[in-house]
């Protein structure tokens, strides 16, 4: 999705059309959440991310509300790539939060300074108890999916791994939206039952 190269999408985005906002959101939500989660460095000075999952989403919401507000939409020139534009907003939101917490931070992270988003660096192994617990449960989830019929397994791949919308999955699998919702319910409730039967606390 290249907003700057799609004039129709750009016009709809600038008009605040929901479909256009959602397309742009889906294209950049991962980057924004990653910046919010892991932080970044500017001229070697680290601006930390947010560790609390709920706070991460709240901050990501702030970023997109700024970017998608009328002033935010009009502030994008439509010529340069949108990714750097929204990533800069994300960094500025983190900087505002850092300043409010009393941390000394640079005035502007993108004015000729050396900026590096932490999530772009190779991830360090996470051997915390929570990470190991998640890994163990995720392996059980994979076993659950492997035991399902091909339709449900394909749905899980499209919905939770590729993160397609229900509408896109309905089109891809040539089924109704109602069928997609049924599959989603089966996947979630089935996994819960699978874990509970194996006495795995999730």
């Amino acid at each position, binding site marked *: 999705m290249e907003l700057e190269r799609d004039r129709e999408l750009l016009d709809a985005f600038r008009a605040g059309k929901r479909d256009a906002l959602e397309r742009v959101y889906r294209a950049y939500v991962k980057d924004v959440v990653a910046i919010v989660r892991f932080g970044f460095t500017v001229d070697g000075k680290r601006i930390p991310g947010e560790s609390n999952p709920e706070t991460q989403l709240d901050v990501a919401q702030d970023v997109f509300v700024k970017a998608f507000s*009328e002033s935010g939409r009009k502030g994008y020139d439509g010529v340069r790539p949108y990714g750097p534009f929204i990533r800069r907003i994300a960094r500025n939101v983190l900087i505002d939060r850092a300043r409010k917490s009393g941390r000394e931070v640079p005035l502007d992270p993108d004015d000729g300074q050396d900026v590096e988003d932490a999530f772009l660096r190779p991830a360090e192994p996470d051997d915390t108890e929570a990470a190991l617990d998640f890994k163990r449960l995720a392996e059980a989830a994979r076993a659950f999916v492997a035991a399902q019929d091909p339709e449900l397994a394909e749905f899980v791949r499209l919905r*939770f*791994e590729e993160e397609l919308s229900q509408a896109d999955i309905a089109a891809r699998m040539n089924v109704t939206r109602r069928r997609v919702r049924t599959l989603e319910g089966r*996947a979630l409730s089935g*996994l819960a039952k699978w874990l509970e039967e194996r006495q795995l606390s999730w």
Partner: protein
Amino acid sequence: MTREDSARLARLLSGRDEPSVLETEALFDRIASDVAPRPWWRRPVAWGALSGIATAAAAAFLFVALPDSGEFGSRGGEEAVLRPHCVTGAETGPCTTGAKLLFDARPPEGAPHFAALAKRPDGTFIWYLPAPDARSAALGAETAVVATAIRLGDEHPAGAYTVFGVFTKDAMTRDEIEAAVGDDLAGGPGVTVVRRELEVR
């Protein structure tokens, strides 16, 4: 299953301990509701009286359902039925503060999911169904009382109301229903809007 349960399970199914597609989609709904241009009929919004808590208002407004006028018939689905009425205790009667507002409804063919909202005399809209984080529920094919009752409170002052029943093919959230009915509340393909007038004396 709670929303938090679903989010946790979705993360496990993705194999990544980061916000899942369910969480990011819910987040977009929040963002869109903050920034998307509002249709005129949605400004401002008063929450529906879904708390189930009777309001101890001193004044008891009379809330009377008028017969179908014909002026506000259904559009796109002549078979849709919507009859708002009130009960106090187990008795049908005038709608007063503390009474329950009920809907007799029958969906048109092909649009079984039901939503309801009302326009107050001051122009403010009140959402009744679905609940803020829910999707509209499907009704049976025959005319029946919708399971959810609305306890009338202070958010229902005296005056003339218009109640809107929205019947859709798919289960929808409030945001999706707003988009589907359009700024003129006229509905569209697969969306039938039925209007009924009510008067609070």
